[in-house]
């Protein structure tokens, strides 16, 4: 039961992007195409889950003064692994995600969960929490990137779905489009949340 709760928390109630509003930078930066959003989501998930496990394991040995540096080293290690693996086996995706793979280190989602959950809870619960958060993070990223890709390119995952007649709104794949799409989507999510809460 607790495990289920740990898992579902990240999906909506404490969705890192739409509810907690953390990890905004990668969210905005890489969501100009669905494939990038998905890739970023998965890469982040990998780091989040692995580091949650390790941190949950070693939490008792870490003195509080160096807690943050230690956590960050753990996270950074996994990020580098992800980076190297992507570069070695998925060079195209690596080229697109560019600077933002290393920046997973400082993605507030990961350190946030490490601090708030993994450093206080046993391993199995941390895994579920991280899994939930990962899924929450990934679907949010995917949603934003799909919206942006459709409007900005007329396609989804590179497949043109709106046909030739559609003139894409280039702005949606440019920086302002990221902010605007995120802002409007957040507004919609808040409306949904309000509706849910009053029910």
């Amino acid at each position, binding site marked *: 039961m607790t495990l289920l709760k740990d898992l579902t928390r990240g999906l909506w109630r404490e969705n890192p992007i739409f509810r907690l509003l953390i990890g905004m930078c990668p969210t905005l930066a890489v969501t100009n195409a669905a494939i990038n959003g998905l890739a970023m989501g998965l890469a982040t998930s990998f780091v989040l889950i692995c580091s949650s496990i390790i941190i949950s394991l070693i939490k008792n040995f870490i003195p509080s003064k160096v807690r943050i540096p230690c956590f960050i080293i753990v996270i950074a290690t996994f990020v580098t692994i992800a980076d190297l693996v992507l570069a070695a086996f998925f060079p195209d995706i690596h080229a697109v995600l560019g600077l933002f793979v290393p920046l997973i280190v400082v993605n507030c989602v990961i350190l946030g969960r490490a601090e708030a959950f993994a450093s206080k809870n046993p391993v199995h619960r941390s895994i579920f929490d991280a899994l939930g958060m990962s899924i929450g993070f990934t679907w949010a990223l995917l949603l934003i990137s799909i919206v942006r890709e459709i409007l900005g390119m007329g396609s989804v995952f590179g497949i043109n779905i709106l046909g030739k007649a559609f*003139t894409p*709104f*280039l*702005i*949606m794949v*440019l920086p*302002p*489009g990221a902010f*605007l799409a995120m802002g*409007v989507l957040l507004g919609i999510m808040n409306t949904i949340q309000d509706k849910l809460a009053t029910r």
Partner: protein
Amino acid sequence: MEKEKLLITSSPHIKDDDTVEKIMYGVIIALIPASVMGVYYFGLHALLLIIASIAAAVVTEAVFQKFRNYPVTITDGSAVITGLLLALNLPPGLPVWMAIVGSVFAIALGKQVFGGLGHNPFNPALIGRAFLVASFPVHMTTWISPVDGTTTATPLGLMKLQGVSTDYMSLFLGKIGGCIGETSALAILIGAAYLLYKGYIDWRIPLSYLGTVAVLTTVFGQDPIFHLFAGGLMLGAFFMATDMVTSPITKKGRWIFGIGAGILVVVIRLWGGYPEGVSYSILLMNGVTPLINRYTRPRVFGEVKNNG
């Protein structure tokens, strides 16, 4: 005769009869010469764009207000101005649906999301334009010649990319490529004179804006007269930088606003990626307007001892 209850209110008990509506309709009147010239030069499609843009702005405002259960205030004329100014800032050959999209965006995300009239931080018409430029850059930079209806380049484009200047008379009368309402400096100046006479705009912003551009272009070895009359500078200086909602409330602030916008225009025109920088200069200064207001508070009467 005194059965009815008296009215009690706080003083003053009389008020000036200028209202928001009057001011807004005044601005619309002042824009008529520029609109007429635009339609004269660029034909019916320009008129269509103007009408579509205004209609879209007004309808969006009404829908938004209805949706929020607020009184619908489209009669105050502010949405009409936004739609009209946006249209005057569009290339004459733009597809009509794009004008509508821009107008909807201008009112919805440029104005109403902040709470409507008076609360928007950025000039809605320019937000609409910037949105269109970023969304459809090709369409937004395709210009029609008023002479033969073929595609052409704007004087600033010619200047920037080919170093060709345009003669002053064409610039002044508007027989050149450009946005619907920006080409004829004459028409704009007529409207501006009306606004200044009515006291609807403050002279400080246009003066400091145009003055800065003139001085800086001279300093950098350009032709100041060309730069004053080319592009959207006149329209921007008199009709858009002066939008009171998005410009500073202090006098000192208005000087800073004008000078800052002037500097930005010159920087963008001379070194930037675009031939024209008026919209961005105004938008950027809109963004710092709250800070300007904050740090140019006038000295209160008697605050510093000044006993002559």
